[in-house]
């Protein structure tokens, strides 16, 4: 569905030293610097996949997304989405994709969201019956009933984002590009959006490409992770593989009576709780040993927080240890 070959975007940005004199001098003698926002990115995303682009600010995630949606022309390299070259912005291509940006909105601010939906129906040339069916479905799934007739400016951020999703999906796109779709949302709104995206992917088989800073978003929505840093792909594999590669292991926690000593199993006691981190292949053996020594123990095995794993992955990438 999506292919990129050595996709590169270089921006030319002006540089200037601080101070009035350098400001004046830059009027006739401006210096420029080239910034490689995206550097020879090669990707292959199949139909129906849910892929997350993850990386720090300025890593090149959004620039990649904008090239894939045809908003930016690549400096070099090639990309195709659903068989089209995005930069050509053919009508059939634009009918096949959508882009939702958490920080920008397409809803008409002074009018009810239903007006934006009606306008999009005309712009995407959706026939009335298909429009009515899709609207009915989206209103139910996104729980839009009750505020479709209120001006957008009077809606909460969560309500607006749900309306944004509906406006972006009215033409039933085959590829969803989501740029930080949960930014600024409260817990309930975030959960609703995540659930909807997963459901949409399951029901329609649409390909989902997401960028986010929010690790929980990534864990909840995608099943494949593309780690981007300084414009370069540092890692591209499944979420599970990512955890295996960069996680230190699994966290084993046990609450037992004071008379039991689990030091011999490799756990350490802190504030009355025994904990230890072990490689995935060892954790079952340790767990069995804990339960043998303390049959009534309250035991949990969990993955380490994804943020920790990510920090480790970027550390490894920058020191050249990433696969």
């Amino acid at each position: 569905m999506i292919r990129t070959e050595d996709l590169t975007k270089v921006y030319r940005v002006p540089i200037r030293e601080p101070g009035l004199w350098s400001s004046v001098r830059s009027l006739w003698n401006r210096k420029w610097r080239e910034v490689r926002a995206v550097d020879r990115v090669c990707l292959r995303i199949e139909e129906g996949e849910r892929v997350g682009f993850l990386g720090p600010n300025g890593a090149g995630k959004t620039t990649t997304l904008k090239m894939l949606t045809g908003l930016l022309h690549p400096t070099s390299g090639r990309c195709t989405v659903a068989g089209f070259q995005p930069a050509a912005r053919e009508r059939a291509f634009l009918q096949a994709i959508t882009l939702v940006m958490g920080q920008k909105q397409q809803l008409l601010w002074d009018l009810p969201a239903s007006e934006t939906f009606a306008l999009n129906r005309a712009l995407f040339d959706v026939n009335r019956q298909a429009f009515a069916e899709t609207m009915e479905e989206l209103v139910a799934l996104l729980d839009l009933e009750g505020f479709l007739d209120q001006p957008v400016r009077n809606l909460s951020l969560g309500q607006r984002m749900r309306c944004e999703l509906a406006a972006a999906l009215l033409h039933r796109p085959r590829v969803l590009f989501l740029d930080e779709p949960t930014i600024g949302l409260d817990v309930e709104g975030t959960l609703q959006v995540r659930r909807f995206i997963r459901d949409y992917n399951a029901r329609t088989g649409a390909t989902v490409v997401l960028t986010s800073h929010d690790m929980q978003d990534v864990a909840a929505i995608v099943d494949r992770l593309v780690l981007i840093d300084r414009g370069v792909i540092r890692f591209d594999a499944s979420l599970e593989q990512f955890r295996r590669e960069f996680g230190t292991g699994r966290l084993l926690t046990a609450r037992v009576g004071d008379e039991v000593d689990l030091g011999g199993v490799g756990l350490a006691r802190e504030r009355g709780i025994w904990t230890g981190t072990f490689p995935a292949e060892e954790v079952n053996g340790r767990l069995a040993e804990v339960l043998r020594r303390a049959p009534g123990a309250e035991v949990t095995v969990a993955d380490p927080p994804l943020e920790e794993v990510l920090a480790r992955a970027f550390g490894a990438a920058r020191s050249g240890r990433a696969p």
Partner: protein
Amino acid sequence: MLDLARTLRVVAALLRVGLSAALQYRADFLLDAVLGVLRASAAVGPTVVLFSVREQVAGWTAPDVALVLGFYLILQALMSGLVEPNLGEVVEAIRSGNLDLLLLKPVDAQLLVSFRRVQPAAIWDLLGGLAVLAWAGWQRPSPGWGAILVAVGLLPPGLAAMYSLWLLAICTSFFFVRVDNLRYVLGAVVDAGRNPLVVYPPWMRVILTAVIPVGLITTFPASALRGEGGLSLWVLAMGIAVGFVIASRAAWLRSLAAYTSSGS
């Protein structure tokens, strides 16, 4: 043919939404109506004063000049009703990166940026212009159907040229951050179109015909109604309009290719 029907549907949908948005603010609509009447009166005022002390200016009588003024007010109505609200909107969209969302629609982006906003209060300017034209027509001998046909035929190329000039102004905002002042400069030069071109020195007539082509839609149709120029005026106007349309379309496509959006 199908494309034309779709384009018309899109324009109708955009205008409908633009009109609905403008009518959300009732107080603004009423205030704009009052301002529209004041603008029309202010445009007529100097001409009334001038012709209270003179019979003619460069061979043009008061009703002749009123023709120019009438066409000028109609142009102003179309500019303030359809063009200027969109100019402000697009410049802001380019600056903020919100143009992204327009570029993702399967419709020509030029069409989208041209008809997103409507200022319904401009209807007062339009009515003012028609009233002035009606008065001029009442005062003058009938120009004949041929002259009327040429005058009406001059409106599309005149409007196309002015719209293209506006689009060229928008294109500059892809490369420069602050282009607000350009709007005022353009507005001031367009104001010069309220007088017959003949009152200006030759070099300025050329500018007001071929560079800021406001003359095409004010003096040209008035001249046609005076029985001057005939079809040659229309041919000249069409030539200039086609040049403007081609240049502005090329500039728009080039600007889009250079569009860098904004950070996330």
